[in-house]
């Protein structure tokens, strides 16, 4: 009896996404054409936002063969007036998956720069045609690339590269893909409509395959300040993130090479050609120790701990110094294997190494790695968590790390996160958009203070509009200025709205009510890669709830005012209805011919 041998192959990210394209919103021709437009438009808006450019975006969809019925091939072109992409980055940016400029901590519509490449990948899979990318970063030279993706190798194949003269900066991407516009059309139009609502400083033009044009001009010329990249906030950092941050600050053991050895000789003031015996070298080192650089001291300590001579140091590479177990691990080039040796704790040079490798103190780690943490806060936190502020971060055990993470969650005196990395729209711009789009009788917007979940700062902006041209109740959801159109019912905002007892605020079912929600964060906790619904995180839920309750109260006081006016009108109407009836009845009852002059009575009620 034998087991069949399983084979393990690594697959490239391109291949992974090719196999799992449903996850990214490319499950069928309808969804795919919609997602492709979104990804391209969002990339353009992001690029303009970063540079503070008022975006002019033009979207064109044309069908390759008019007569054919859906699903069929469409050419999708999105152009912007943004900064463009440096021509030397274009092949990698659009020809590989998971290559992007968006991995830092700042708010952007896209998260990893994955979407555009996915759209290109999808186009290539369905139509086997290359993508066209045209870019100009200086407004003089324009580079046009035509390329395909090598899915297995995750590499671009450039089929054409032309340079032309131009007068405009910006980027144009053109993809040929299989889509179903007759089904996706209304979603695409909704998307563009809502995008211009949440981006009132952008002009967006859309030419659909049927020859219709949809045009949304900018309502304002003020653009919210572009976000900056920042460190994470300590609140809500989980153990895994903590471990990664510690790893990043970990002591990096320098490696030996000929140049470094030359430097060491120089510092020791010895000549490498001369052969010193070990004793002499040791004596020189001891003599010159206090004059030596940190790196030299470290390398010499390693050499002496391992009892090597200078030449031998070139045959090894130190991988790790484990100061908890007093071991050192290195790769021996001669033996081609990793060796771990136990070191003598009392050795002077080991002590030096250990001190270096212990890493930052807790207080230093906190101030260096997180935003809004100064010396004072770090010390206060240490006291709260019952750690010594001078405790070395590398010496922390697993349990201590878990406890540290727990304490970070519980400590309430951290300043609220720096939201300079966020780009909320702001109450003024949001109001302008809502006013222009819905022409309501009443509206109110609120921007909550920045808060954080799992160390990611976020801001909730919410607006309500009532009456006027509004018909029925509708929710407009946005996240990082992206409209969310699908799966409304599983979204956190939807949940919060449904949890509220609207009767208490005098709002009936199906009132002419619009709710606009905008969640900004360096990382929106989407439930899926397709960016359609925001997951329910307690911190976000709380902010949404407070914002909504605030607005509901405003709305409710508006409704009572309105209700009072309506009541007053109804009251007067009642007199006008009933008094004439009473008059008619009592005239016959009292055997009178003529009705009494009851008009006088109305003077009293007005």
């Amino acid at each position, binding site marked *: 009896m034998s087991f069949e041998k399983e084979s393990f192959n690594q697959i490239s990210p391109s291949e992974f996404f090719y196999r799992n394209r449903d996850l990214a919103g490319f499950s069928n021709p309808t969804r795919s054409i919609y997602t492709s437009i979104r990804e391209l438009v969002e990339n353009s808006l992001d690029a303009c936002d970063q540079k503070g450019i008022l975006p002019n975006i033009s979207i064109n969809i044309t069908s390759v063969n008019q007569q054919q019925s859906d699903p069929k091939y469409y050419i999708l072109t999105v152009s912007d007036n943004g900064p463009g992409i440096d021509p030397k980055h274009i092949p990698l940016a659009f020809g590989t998956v998971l290559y992007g400029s968006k991995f830092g901590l700042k708010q952007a519509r896209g998260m990893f720069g994955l979407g555009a490449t996915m759209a290109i990948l999808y186009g290539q899979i369905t139509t086997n045609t290359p993508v066209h990318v045209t870019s100009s970063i200086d407004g003089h030279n324009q580079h046009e690339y035509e390329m395909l993706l090598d899915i297995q190798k995750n590499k671009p194949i450039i089929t054409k590269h032309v340079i032309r003269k131009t007068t405009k900066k910006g980027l144009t991407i053109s993809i040929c893909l299989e889509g179903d516009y007759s089904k996706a059309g209304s979603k695409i139009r909704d998307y563009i409509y809502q995008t211009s609502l949440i981006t009132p400083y952008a002009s967006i033009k859309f030419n659909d395959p049927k020859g219709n044009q949809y045009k949304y001009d900018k309502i304002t010329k003020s653009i919210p300040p572009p976000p900056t990249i920042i460190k994470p906030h300590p609140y809500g950092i989980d153990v895994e993130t903590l471990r990664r941050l510690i790893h990043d600050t970990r002591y990096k053991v320098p490696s030996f090479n000929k140049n470094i050895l030359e430097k060491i000789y120089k510092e020791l003031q010895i000549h490498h050609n001369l052969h010193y015996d070990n004793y002499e070298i040791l004596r020189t080192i001891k003599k010159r120790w206090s004059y030596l650089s940190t790196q030299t001291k470290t390398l010499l300590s390693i050499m002496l701990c391992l009892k090597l001579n200078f030449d031998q140091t070139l045959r090894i590479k130190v991988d790790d110094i484990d100061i908890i177990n007093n071991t050192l691990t290195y790769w021996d080039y001669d033996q081609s294997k990793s060796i771990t040796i136990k070191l003598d704790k009392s050795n002077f040079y080991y002590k030096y190494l250990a001190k270096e490798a212990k890493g930052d103190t807790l207080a230093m780690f906190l101030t260096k790695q997180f935003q809004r943490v100064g010396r004072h806060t770090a010390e206060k936190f240490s006291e709260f968590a019952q750690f010594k502020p001078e405790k070395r971060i590398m010496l922390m055990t697993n349990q201590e790390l878990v406890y540290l993470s727990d304490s970070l969650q519980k400590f309430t005196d951290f300043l609220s996160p720096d939201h300079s990395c966020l780009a909320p729209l702001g109450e003024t711009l949001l109001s302008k958009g809502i006013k222009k789009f819905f022409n309501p009788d009443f509206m109110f917007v609120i921007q909550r203070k920045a808060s954080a979940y799992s160390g990611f700062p976020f801001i909730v902006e919410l607006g309500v509009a009532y009456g006027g041209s509004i018909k029925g109740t509708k929710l407009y959801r946005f996240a990082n200025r992206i409209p969310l159109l699908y799966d409304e019912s599983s979204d956190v905002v939807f949940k919060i709205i449904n949890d509220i007892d609207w009767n208490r605020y005098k709002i009936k079912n199906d009132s002419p009510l619009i709710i606009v929600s905008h969640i900004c964060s360096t990382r929106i906790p989407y439930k899926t890669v397709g960016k359609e619904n925001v997951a329910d995180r307690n911190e976000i839920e709380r902010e949404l709830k407070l914002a909504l309750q605030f607005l509901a109260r405003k709305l409710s006081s508006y409704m009572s005012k309105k209700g009072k006016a309506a009541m007053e009108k109804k009251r007067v109407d009642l007199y006008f209805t009933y008094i004439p*009836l009473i008059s008619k009845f009592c005239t016959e009852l*009292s055997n009178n011919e003529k009705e*009494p002059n009851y008009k006088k*009575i109305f003077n*009293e009620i007005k």
Partner: protein
Amino acid sequence: MKYKETKKNKLLSDLLRNHGVKIYDDLDQGIFPKFLIPSRSTRNIIYDKKLRQYVLGNNASIRNSKNISQLRSFTQLTWLAFFANRLIKEKKSSTLRDIYYSSQAFSIDFEDQPESDNIIVDLESVLSRPREDLHIFPEERSSIFGDLVIEYTVPGYEGKRTNLSDHPDGYLIGPSLSSAELIETSANLVIAIEKGGLFTRFVEEQVDKKFKSIIIDTAGQAPRSTRYLLRRLHDELNLPVVILTDGDVYGEHIAMVIKSGSANAAHLRELTVPDAKWMGVWASDIEKYKLPTIPMTESDVKRIHDLKKDPRYQQGIWKSELDVFLKLKRKAELEAFSKYGLTNITDKYLPQKLELSKSL
């Protein structure tokens, strides 16, 4: 006799017109008109020992057309007065349900019949007159049989006479019978029975002839038109009234309502027969006549305790029978006599009780 009915209508018309004039004058002077309505809340219902019935106290509420929450019901009340006036003038009658529907022709909107019924009671209170005087009747269900000649006053039948023993199923006590003049009778007794089945038995057994009586089926709690007729038979023809009910607490109360009215009609007079006598079936008869019984329900017992607080149940057979019921915790129906033969009730029980009731 004929003159009496016309005079009554004239009085009522005048009463209604006075209210109309008051409202008319108020409106003409730019004043919001109002009605004064005696309060029918339990706190304002008191037992009048002299009248031997429940009456309303002095509390009254104002229904003001200026008050927006009363404006609608004020209009409804005015309309009802106006409509009742038309009914009287045109000698037409209307059922409670008719009122509810008629209102719609005058853009008076009653939400449901209970609302219009309530306004009718309001008008009764304002006028201290039963709705029957206003030619408004409930659906009839009560019947009468016996040697009694009546003369109709309703349009189309004016002057026409009928003997109420002409039809063996009895005559329905409806608007035309209620408004008829009572001409003559050979009877010297009125027997009111709670149940239609027994009423039929009594007609079959010729109780009317054997005991020289007029038999009335109250069909449960006697409707107002029936109570009003009983009152007239007693007052106008000097006939004593005896009442025969089931042997339970509800039966006892049916008799009491005929005798001294209900709290619901405390705003009205002339619906009671204070001299009426309850002759059975008493609780003590259950043992005496060895009647088959059924156990009382919880609500029966609760009802006994309620009635024991009523001032009318504080003495005589009213009190003693209630106590026996409470002791027995059992009840007997009129039909229980059938155990001893179908005619047992008319042959044995009735003569004995009639004899006994003379001494009550």
